[in-house]
């Protein structure tokens, strides 16, 4: 028998059913909550990261200030990008656990991929 994964398209609901799920209040709620996390998180990341090359490029005096011993602000700022990245990742993991619970409550006859039923 062929790999069943290849057949999954046969289990798809029809177009109207997708539209129906998309219009459901539960799905709207999921999307709103995702947007409420992802949009600000991504924008913050974008601004925080792009500030690094912009400040290094256009405010070299400021960035060459020594903040810890001989460490320049530029180097500390660059290192802080790693911390910020990890923190965003951690927060997203927490937030997305909530999204996963909302997905389980969707009005649908299609199996969730983690085989919930």
């Amino acid at each position: 028998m062929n790999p069943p994964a290849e057949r999954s398209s046969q289990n798809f609901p029809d177009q109207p059913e997708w539209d129906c799920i998309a219009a459901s209040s539960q799905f709207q709620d999921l999307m709103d909550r995702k947007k409420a996390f992802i949009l600000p998180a991504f924008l913050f990341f974008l601004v925080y990261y792009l500030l690094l090359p912009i400040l290094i490029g256009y405010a070299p005096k400021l960035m060459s200030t020594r903040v810890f011993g001989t460490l320049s602000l530029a180097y500390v700022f660059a290192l802080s990008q790693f911390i910020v990245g990890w923190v965003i990742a951690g927060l997203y993991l927490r937030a997305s656990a909530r999204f996963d619970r909302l997905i389980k409550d969707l009005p649908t006859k299609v199996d969730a991929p983690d085989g919930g039923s």
Partner: protein
Amino acid sequence: MSISLAVFLGFVASTLGITYWASKRSRGASAYFAAGRQITAWQNGFAVAGDFMSAASFLGIVGLIALQGLDGFLYAVGGFVAFVTILLLVAEPLRNTGKYTMGDVLAYRLRPRPVRALAALSTLATILFYMIAQMVGAGALVALLLANSGISYNMAVTGVGILMMVYVVFGGMLATTWIQIIKATLLSACALALTILVLDHFHFRPGEFFAATCRVAYHQKDQLLVRDFLQSGLRYKPPYGPLDLISLSLAFICGTAGLPHVLVKFYTVPDAKTARKSVVWAMILIGSFYVMTSVIGLGAAVVVGPDHIVTHGGTNMSGPLLAQALGGDVFLALVSAVAFATILAVVAGLTISASTSFAHDFWMNVIHHGVERKSGETMLVARISALAVGAVAIIIAIALGPASNAGILATLGMTVAASANFPAIALSIFWRRFNTAGAVAGLAVGLLASIGLILASPNFMGIDPPSATGTVHHLVQAKAWFPLENVGILSVPLGFLAAIVGTLLSHEPSSEAKFNEFLVRANTGLGAERAVERAVAH
């Protein structure tokens, strides 16, 4: 030299063992192209890190830091933060709506043939740049390592190419994934050991270490300079430096999320939740690795010195030279063997994503309208194209030899991905109105603009000062038409603009009608491709 060979042969033997094991398990296309979608979160995180921490990272970025201090470190920062884009925007929708390639996501609600043809083309273009970067790194390593061993550069490169073909042709994605996992572990261990050796050299007093990095002495045009390597400005100088830097950052945050060989990894896990966790695993590994590269690179600048690096193998050799200075020939051998294993693994990862895209996107869906005439045809085509890609890689490596910095070359591949692939992927995930004309325009313009600008940039155009050795650094001996090394600042907006204008100029009701379906699937995983074994159990 024998230790280096022993480590390397050990790696080769274990990878061949894995390939044999994987070939026994590989049944069916889903197993061959996506490792049966059974890779766990940490495994895929290691594999993604393995794919991303290439020779460009280990050899290239360490070298850039060793010669240019903080400005080189910015490459490492960019490489890490790029995974925030992947985590928040791309990984889960991709896993939920696709099957084997990034072309799947684009073709979901658009007309598949033109979109897939272009997606395959830009996949191959991106991978070509990456492949050249790996081969340049390999060339430099071989030149350093095998200087007195009787093994020529051409023999070594051919050997690497053939090994990589064996992995991909017989082992498929499962073997490639495990090779990446082993390699990521080796590379991280190696970086950790080097970091500890550097700190040990400064008696585990960070203050002493950083104080030394503030006065690195080296020669430039016969002048002795003493520079602070924790300050910016060694690489990015006015007038274009600041713009170049912003351009580079843009290429990283958009480009990594468009790298075909990174994206295919998210098809190897069972679901979006695992894909998400695997990105976080990758971020832990890649982040700590890149923080260590700053210690290693600065260590090389202080302990080995830029003068010695330039005269003993060039920027790419900074890490291995540091290993030699701190740990002797034994450690040099170990580090070089790991670096070589890195190249082998990354080239295998590049090859399988290129051949998957060619077989699945181009052969099956563009030429044969998505109908497999014989069972297993796609796999056969993929295996044949893996052989072709391997052959091309060998030829390129032999033609190039050790040339420019591997880190910079890989960044060019990133720029192509940022300008062509990323706008199309992002807009197809988030914009209801997006349509085929937009995707085709975005991919084509992004591809042409990035490659065209790269060819007109100082990477390829420039006037070399006459030198005694007669070496030529620029392909075209003329003043560069485009002043920046990193062209993303212009080519990424052009890619987006073309995609948006192309969309607005045409109407495609079927694409908009299918957006609800796409949106629900992308965000919930309903109806997504399953893991092979799990589905069998149902």
